[in-house]
């Protein structure tokens, strides 16, 4: 069950925030309001009238529009086509529609160009297309599911300006987030969800982030902060002059990584900040050997591995927590114990010589399930049937079991609940104490700042800035992420960390 006993009342013409930790059931609730999923019981009342929403079409007809957590755009279609899809009756699919799009775009300052292919747009632009899609349908109630997750702080404030403008026009906005500072800064009302049910409401002006957080989690928030430093002088991973170019589908060669240089020492966590799509994924893939750099060197524990195959690197001691666990970390339809072998098939206990040792692998999977608290009835169930958090714990357990020298952790706690999050942080800290080097990539700037010993900022394929995690604030990091600041970032005491910090 994803939702039960939900009570939610939203006033017209307000911004209503919905918060709750990952997996609390926020998205599910919104999908119900948008007709994408059917509730087993309960009622939805809109403007005093009880409604039944069987499909998104019903919801749209009643003026409800939704911007999904994961963008719902077809890359190969143009912005115009994406916008008019499903609403062709309104203004046709030709010039009428184009004019209307321009009109809306101008009215709310969205700056949307109708004839561009969506695949050529960046994240913030895509989000504006999504909002325009909703407005184009004349929605009076907007649902925004975690619209800020992929934006840098500057883009967030631009978005909030848009939202306030919408509110001024009399529209209702339901806004989902688990970033409490944001919520408090923009919302008129707040509803908190935990484990699929509403646990309370709050008025922003009378609530502190701490109160809200405790309402959300039901307990003290864990902190990702690293206490004592364990950094040593021994370099574990050295990257020098790394350059990588990729050919896109039009045959155009683009530079995705340029002059990347850094060193991670034993016992050091290097945090890499950056807006998604600025080359972090490619850097990870280059270090993992999934992409072959044009020039530069990668050295692991004294051994050059620039062009070594992925397997060699894994055997050489790189552990990998991938960004997208479903695509890169798991075999969804395979049982857990086979997932335990994945990536380490050549290592003990998974195989002996050329042959698999299924028995030993099974036994070791049992151990991981136990030690890493993977909530599962057994190791024969498929990975697909576990929840995201438990899948992640399995992956962490697997990677840690081989005592890596270097751990590449990309968004290690994305979509993971608070309990599991703390556990994963503990794992990383503990291994770090024993000399593990970590390359950490995260969109959660608090996690990044809290866990790292060193911070670097990546922008358009280059490392443009560095910062000291002890003093830096998310805002300052954010400005470097948009390319507004470079070099060594110094914390300026005068500034007040408004809206960005949730502790």
């Amino acid at each position, binding site marked *: 069950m994803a939702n039960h006993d939900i009570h939610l009342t939203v006033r017209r013409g307000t911004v209503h925030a919905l918060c709750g930790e990952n997996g609390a059931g926020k998205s599910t609730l919104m999908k119900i309001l948008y007709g*994408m999923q059917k509730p087993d019981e309960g009622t939805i009342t809109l403007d005093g009238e009880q409604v039944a929403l069987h499909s998104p079409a019903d919801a749209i007809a009643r003026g409800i529009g939704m911007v999904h957590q994961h963008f*719902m755009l077809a890359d*190969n279609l143009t912005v115009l086509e994406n916008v008019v*899809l499903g*609403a062709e009756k309104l203004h046709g699919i030709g010039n009428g529609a184009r004019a209307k799009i321009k009109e809306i775009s101008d009215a709310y300052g969205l700056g949307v160009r109708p004839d561009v292919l969506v695949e050529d747009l960046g994240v913030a632009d895509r989000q504006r297309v999504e909002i325009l*899609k909703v407005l184009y349908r004349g929605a009076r109630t907007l649902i925004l599911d975690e619209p800020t997750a992929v934006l840098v702080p500057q883009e967030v404030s631009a978005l909030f300006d848009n939202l306030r403008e919408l509110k001024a026009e009399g529209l209702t906005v339901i806004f989902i987030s688990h970033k409490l500072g944001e919520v408090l800064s923009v919302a008129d009302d707040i509803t908190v969800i935990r484990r699929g049910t509403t646990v309370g409401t709050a008025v922003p002006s009378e609530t502190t982030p701490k109160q809200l957080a405790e309402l959300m989690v039901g307990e003290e928030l864990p902190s990702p902060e690293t206490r004592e430093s364990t950094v040593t002088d021994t370099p574990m991973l050295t990257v020098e002059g790394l350059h990588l170019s990729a050919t896109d*589908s*039009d045959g155009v060669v683009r530079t995705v990584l340029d002059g990347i240089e850094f060193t991670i020492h034993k016992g050091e966590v290097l945090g890499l900040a950056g807006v998604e799509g600025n080359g972090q994924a490619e850097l990870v893939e280059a270090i993992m050997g999934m992409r072959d750099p044009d020039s530069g060197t990668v050295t692991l524990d004294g051994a050059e591995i620039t062009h070594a195959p992925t397997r060699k690197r894994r055997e050489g001691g790189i552990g990998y927590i991938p960004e997208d666990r479903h695509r890169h970390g798991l075999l969804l339809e395979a049982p857990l114990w086979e997932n335990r072998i994945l990536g380490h098939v050549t290592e003990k206990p998974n195989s002996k010589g050329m042959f698999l040792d299924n028995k030993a692998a099974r036994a070791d999977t049992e151990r991981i399930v136990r030690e890493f608290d993977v909530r599962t009835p057994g190791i024969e169930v498929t990975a697909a049937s576990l929840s995201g958090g438990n899948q992640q714990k399995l992956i962490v357990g697997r990677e840690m079991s081989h005592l890596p020298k270097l751990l590449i952790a990309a968004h290690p706690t994305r979509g993971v609940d608070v309990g599991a999050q703390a556990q994963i942080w503990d794992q990383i800290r503990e291994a770090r104490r024993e000399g593990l080097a970590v390359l950490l990539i995260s969109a959660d700037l608090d996690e990044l700042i809290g866990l790292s010993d060193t911070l670097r900022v990546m922008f358009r394929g280059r490392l443009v800035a560095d910062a000291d995690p002890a003093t830096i604030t998310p805002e300052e990091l954010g400005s470097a992420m948009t390319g507004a600041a470079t070099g060594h970032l110094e914390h300026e005491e005068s500034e007040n960390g408004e809206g960005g910090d949730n502790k």
Partner: protein
Amino acid sequence: MSTTFTSGLAERLTGKNKGDGGRKPTYPMVMLIIAGGLILLSALRALTGANDLTSSGQFSSALAAAVPIGLAGLGGLWAERAGVVNIGLEGMMMLGAFSAGWMGWQHGPWLAAVAGIVGGALGGLIHAIATVTFGVDHIISGVAMNILALGVTQYFAKLWFGAEGSAAQQAGGNDKQSPVMDNMPDFSIPGLSGWLQSVEKHHWFLVSDVAGVLRGLVTDVSWLTIVAALLFAGTFFVLWRSAFGLRLRSCGESPVAAESLGVNVYTYKYAAVVVSGAMAGLGGAFLAIGTHMYSDGQTGGRGYIGLATMISGNWRPGGVAMSAGLFGFMDSLQLRSGGPTVHALLLLIAVLLVGFAAWRFKGGKTKPAIGAAVVAALLFVWFALTKTVPLEFVDATPYVVTLLVLSLFAQRLRMPKANGKPYRKGQGK
């Protein structure tokens, strides 16, 4: 005609629809390329004396050979634009040919065409049920479809056409073929056809060639060919210029996004796959009507070739038409004139490869350039040392050409993004 030429053209015709221009072909450009192709062909004809290269008969039969392949390709396009891979085209063609044969001997060719459409659509429906409703892997379902269609048509052919003493048997049917049906009427543009013929006879450089090609396209053209041409145009307008088409294509690009906007993805997928079957069925019917009967094994792998034309045509109607045309051209060339004429083509391909090599070399790609140059040199040698090409090689040309086109251009092709991916309602992220 050659690989590089047409595929280059197809490429241009079908290039990514990049908003305001970019690589979108302009009308004069298309005309220029066609003109260039014609000049090359005429030069080749004049040089080698292979008069059949541009004769009206050659183009007329190329057209007839292209239509069923093109219809299959168009069928594939419909399905795949909605995200369903249809390798069952071959089976749907069989069903179409069979239904046409069954209807045709009793009620004439027009109803045969209708029956073919219905038969193919039924095949499409089964494929849709398996893939859309039950979520079976598309290729697996398509293979199963082909096996089923073969079994069913053979069984019912025996029962309905070959039963001892039945009316069908009396009328000339047997286990493997239906009784014959009437001719599908055809038409020629009066006046024009005769005049063109007189021009064509003179074998004047270019002039006669153009006359030959034109005459081939306006003389004794089956009405069904006209229908097919209209279907190509219609497909373009429906899929790219109507709301229905936008929705259908969105199901192939991102069904989850379409669903979130209230599009019933299942409905559109069903519609697309059924239309796909109908088109392939019409392709099968075209074969049956052309030979006045259904016969066992009539489709001869054309469904698969249709699939290939769809891919090398970059999932665009213009591209499918071009590559089906290329297939038809090669097919009829080898059937009509055999080895010596195909032999002449070696020269053309060699020349074009040299051009290709030069182009790649200029672009700084030495490796492919050298490869092309070496192949070109080998072809020159082959051309110079022989008088004809063995029939077996001629036979294989369409397939080799497809492989060549794909291996040269596959990287640039752009299939619908969610093509072949399973989709379940309400399970998008």
